[in-house]
């Protein structure tokens, strides 16, 4: 589904990603871990198409199509979803109206009719129950005055509504207490299928106890320096990142 080949990306002429190779197949969950400043968030932003980052070498392909020059909204229409570490507040636009707009823009791009109101309502009800979201919450302005946990839960709610092919969760666990973490992880697990894929970006192993990855990659200094199974996450938790850094130098 996603093929990243020798990806180099920079911002303001500073190279952040220095040759990433990664393949994610349908049905898989990949975790990308790494110390602060290793390029985790840059990688997720580049996949989602943030224009401030310049891809200087290599490519990102989705289902065989090179995403270079594809606008962020078109990537979304093709099924890419990025859950933000810091979601943006939009006063005056309710969660419901926002998600309706997002869904219908995607449908429009795919040549589909707008989703009928009753279908939309039913879907909103189902997905908000799945994530234990109060209906009142949905009429509030998007992210305005939300707590950290509410923002993250709202991100996953949007993901549930948009049903992406490839979901990237960027530090979704930060700012969540254990109960919220469990609800969010449970939501993600229920949305997982053999047809979609998830990339979980995290600093800590904690979230991976709930969203169990098939593969774990360690990012350091803009490169994937180690890949393995879920046991790699445990090893990192135990030993920290220093041994990886040292190994990388060698």
């Amino acid at each position, binding site marked *: 589904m996603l093929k990243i080949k020798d990806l180099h990306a920079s911002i303001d002429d500073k190279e952040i990603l220095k040759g990433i190779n990664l393949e994610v197949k349908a049905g898989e969950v990949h975790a990308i871990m790494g110390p602060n400043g290793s390029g985790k968030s840059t990688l997720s932003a580049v996949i*989602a198409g943030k224009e401030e980052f310049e891809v200087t070498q290599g490519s990102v392909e989705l289902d065989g199509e090179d995403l270079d020059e594809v606008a962020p909204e078109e990537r979304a229409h093709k099924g890419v*979803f990025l859950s933000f570490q810091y979601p943006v507040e939009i006063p*005056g636009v309710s969660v419901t109206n926002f998600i309706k707009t997002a869904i219908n823009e995607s449908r429009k791009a795919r040549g589909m009719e707008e989703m009928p109101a009753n279908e939309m309502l039913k879907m909103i009800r189902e997905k908000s129950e799945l994530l234990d979201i109060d209906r009142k919450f949905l009429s509030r302005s998007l992210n305005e005055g939300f707590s950290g946990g509410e923002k993250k839960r709202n991100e996953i709610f949007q993901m549930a509504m948009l049903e992406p092919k490839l979901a990237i969760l960027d530090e979704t666990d930060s700012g969540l207490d254990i109960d919220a973490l469990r609800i969010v992880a449970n939501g993600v697990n229920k949305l997982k299928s053999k047809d979609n894929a998830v990339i979980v970006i995290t600093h800590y192993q904690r979230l991976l106890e709930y969203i169990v990855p098939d593969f774990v990659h360690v990012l350091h200094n803009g490169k994937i320096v180690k890949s393995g199974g879920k046991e790699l996450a445990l090893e990192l938790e135990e030993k920290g990142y220093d041994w990886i850094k040292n190994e990388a130098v060698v």
Partner: protein
Amino acid sequence: MDLKDKLISSFMAFESNVDIEHPVHDVRTEAMKNFEMKGFPTKKEEAWKYTSLKNLQKVDFSIFPKEENALEYKQVKKYFLHEVDTYKIVFIDGIYSSYLSETTHDGVDICLMSSALTKPMYKPVVDVYFNKVASKDESLTTLNTAFCREGAYIYIPKNKMPKKPVEIIHFATGNEASLMLQPRNLIIAEENSELQVIERHQSLTSNEVLTNSVTEIFAADSAIVDYYKIQNDSENASLIDNTYIDQKGKSNVSVHTFSFGGKLIRNNLNFYQNGEHIESTMKGVTILGNKQHVDHHTLVHHIEPNCESHQDYKGIYGENATGVFNGKIIVDKIAQKTNAFQQNNNILVSDKATINTKPQLEIFADDVKCSHGCTIGQLDEDALFYLQSRGIPQKEARALLMYAFANNVLESVRIPEVKARINKLIAKKLGVSLGFDL
């Protein structure tokens, strides 16, 4: 002949059509003298540093329309707030249109300035209020006073509230190649009364129009007045709006100004707090493009203790649009415990758009809370990326962000239909359909 000379010579013609024996005419003559002496303001004056009236003075404006013009309701229906029932005071090329209007004398007076200035029954009120808060030396105000004859007259007696909001609408038909209008409004809300007014100026063609309007509002003890100015005129229509508000104790007056179109718009909004526990609110949303120009000059004069004033102006400027915000707050020495807030935030969406923003605080009391802030910025790229990453195209994403930026100004709009109309105008102005009503 330049515009000033033309106005001076027109004054004689004007005099042959009004009762020069009436005491109001002494006020006009006095005002004319002031305008003759001062003429139009120039950029040399601090208050007009960023707004030039030079080009407008070169236009050969008709000072009086030649004939009465009629309009069919269906031609202008869209400019009315048809979502809600209203009283209507409508003028076509400066002349009252009884056909399009709906006035009343049922417990309240919602009618015409021409009646108020001529009929004996209104004389006691006119003697007390007319030209009492409007400036007697600001040249454009005195120019309006000199030619005052028509406009809206609203009188709400003690404890009364009209059954519905009042719309004051001025249409310019374009039958004149270029037309100057000088409406004069007098609005009195007596003790504990309530009033809502929506004012609009609409030119129906691209012919040149210059409106120099003066509105006096008197809010007695505990009166509540909400005033909405919808400025969405055509590209050759200019508006100089001079509004003067006199507030007494515990009264609450708000003015919302929505500037979405026009060639040159100058808003001189002046609040005088003559009592304690007064609340004054000035809010504005400006969205301009092309070569449009807006200049918001606000003044709030805290004369007595324990009063509040709130100002919040948001501006979005595109293409070659230019904007000015100058907010003056005066707190007199005895006006202790004043709370005065002022906020002006601007987004420039083009490299060529400009905004000049200036807070001007003159505080003579020592126990006050005054805050002011102004910002000029661009749209937040991270926010834009967030919306796009959810599948919302860039143009719509930008519009949503601009809407969100202006949104808190709309929260205080108390007529839902006005709010809905403004939301639609904003969406239209931003050139998007967002799939839901904002």
